[in-house]
């Protein structure tokens, strides 16, 4: 029984990590149709930002302050990744809105460049981020341990989702964003400043990648190739949820998290991966537009 509960928790926590990684893509890919292969490198930038901030705290601030660096790291990672995203949008992505598949290829180039740049700046070996003291340990309930880090990530994801929903569905800015992504020309004919909306949207999507990177420092390695190990999963989640469907993305991430932890429990990590991906393929055969797929009236 307790193993079921802890596995369920593990699944949910893996799901929220996946969701955090996919949330940014849900915007840049789901809404804007940009297949951003450099999304992983934006995640990596978020992680390195956290690392740098940690070093700054260690070097320049009193020891007592160290515990707070991680709180500051979250918005800072968002900002750094968002700025990088903004730069990418202005220089690369902007020319590719009409050519989604080409965006994949161009951003692939960006990802190669960013990886090597990170290697040149931070060195090839992994760096370590030490979690603040208050994130160590876990909540022990009836003999089961729920690590604080995992609980923290779940909470962080909930907060991100809440803010994103608010932005997308309750603000005119979110409405403009949806309009521009649906029909750029027409939106501009109505007076929407498409360039600004595009940049904002891409920056926000990238910013979420930064947050994902920040929280990944709690559980994994921080190195130049950090992002590449998550990128495929992230795309699968967006696709599985249904392109442009935030709710779908959330379901998909949780489903994937829980599914793979339980399959892994009864098989091995390798076969869990095989089975989960095979299930995704089969599921999409059955529901080709994803969990929350859109029915469109248009012919094509």
């Amino acid at each position, binding site marked *: 029984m307790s193993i079921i509960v802890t596995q369920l928790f593990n699944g949910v926590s893996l799901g929220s990590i996946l969701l955090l990684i996919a949330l940014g893509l849900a915007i840049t890919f789901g809404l804007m149709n940009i297949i951003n292969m450099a999304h992983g490198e934006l995640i990596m930038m978020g992680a390195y930002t956290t690392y740098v901030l940690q070093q700054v705290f260690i070097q320049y601030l009193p020891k007592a302050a160290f515990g707070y660096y991680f709180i500051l790291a979250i918005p800072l990672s968002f900002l750094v990744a968002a700025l990088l995203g903004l730069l990418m949008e202005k220089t690369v992505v902007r020319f590719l809105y009409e050519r989604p598949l080409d965006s994949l290829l161009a951003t692939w180039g960006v990802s190669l460049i960013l990886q090597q740049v990170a290697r040149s700046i931070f060195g090839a070996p992994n760096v370590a981020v030490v979690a603040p003291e208050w994130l160590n340990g876990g909540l022990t309930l009836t003999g089961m341990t729920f690590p604080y880090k995992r609980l923290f990530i779940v909470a962080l994801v909930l907060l991100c989702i809440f803010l994103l929903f608010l932005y997308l569905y309750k603000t*005119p800015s979110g*409405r*403009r964003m*949806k*309009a521009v992504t*649906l*029909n750029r*020309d*027409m*939106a*501009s*004919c*109505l*007076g*929407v*400043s*498409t360039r600004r909306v595009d940049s904002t949207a891409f920056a926000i999507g990238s910013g979420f990648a930064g947050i994902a990177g920040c929280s990944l420092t709690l559980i994994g390695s921080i190195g130049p190739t950090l992002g590449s190990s998550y990128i495929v999963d992230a795309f699968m989640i967006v696709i599985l949820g249904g392109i*442009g469907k935030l709710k779908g993305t959330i379901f998909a991430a949780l489903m994937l998290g829980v599914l793979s932890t339980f399959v892994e429990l009864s098989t091995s990590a390798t076969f869990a991966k095989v089975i989960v991906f095979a299930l995704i393929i089969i599921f999409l055969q059955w529901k080709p537009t994803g969990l929350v797929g*859109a029915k*469109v*009236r*248009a012919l094509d």
Partner: protein
Amino acid sequence: MLLVSNLQAGYDETMILQNVHLELPKGKIVGLLGRNGVGKTTLVKALMGLIPVTNGSIRFEENEWKKERPEARARAGMAYVPQGREIFSDLSIKENLLLGMEALPKSQRSTSIPQEIFQWFPVLEEMIDRKGGDLSGGQQQQLAIARAIISNPKVLLLDEPMEGIQPNIVQLIQDVLVKISSEKEMSILLVEHNLDAVLACADQFYILDKGQMVMNGNCNEINEDDLQRHLAV
């Protein structure tokens, strides 16, 4: 209101429009006629800024507009109903209409739809929360018109707005156009194939042929023979 002179525009390497002159007086409806493929849509797109103008000028309230982006034109008071309707298919009717108000200054944008719109197009009120893409062709066309006039533009560009709309609503739209053009001093460019529809509401007309203006005048002093010459196939 809008003065186009010597305009040259087209796609990539092919120039469609040559030497086009056009004047939209304040508060008047101007009909633009022409056979298929003569460049009517191209002209409207050039006016809205969707395709680049290679030569000539577009003056709007004494300012040169040739190089402005579409959104700037929209904010300055130009609105556009495209030939393909171009509804935001994934957004609700309400959201589509709210987007129509983007052209207004922030202070004048409201969060609700002016009742006037629903008086003209009751079907939109009935379906206010349905997705734009689910509407029937004619319903979409009505939505497109409503979306354009909701911002009270100074210049309204209509590319075949009656296409696919049921007869009684066509009449209604004609009435609405006449009404708003005079009441709100809106200048309207009405691209139409249907001569009767133009004659029913326009004050002046232009005829475009092979990318050039070949004829213009007042609707009440039209010469049937000339018309036939330029419009017949």
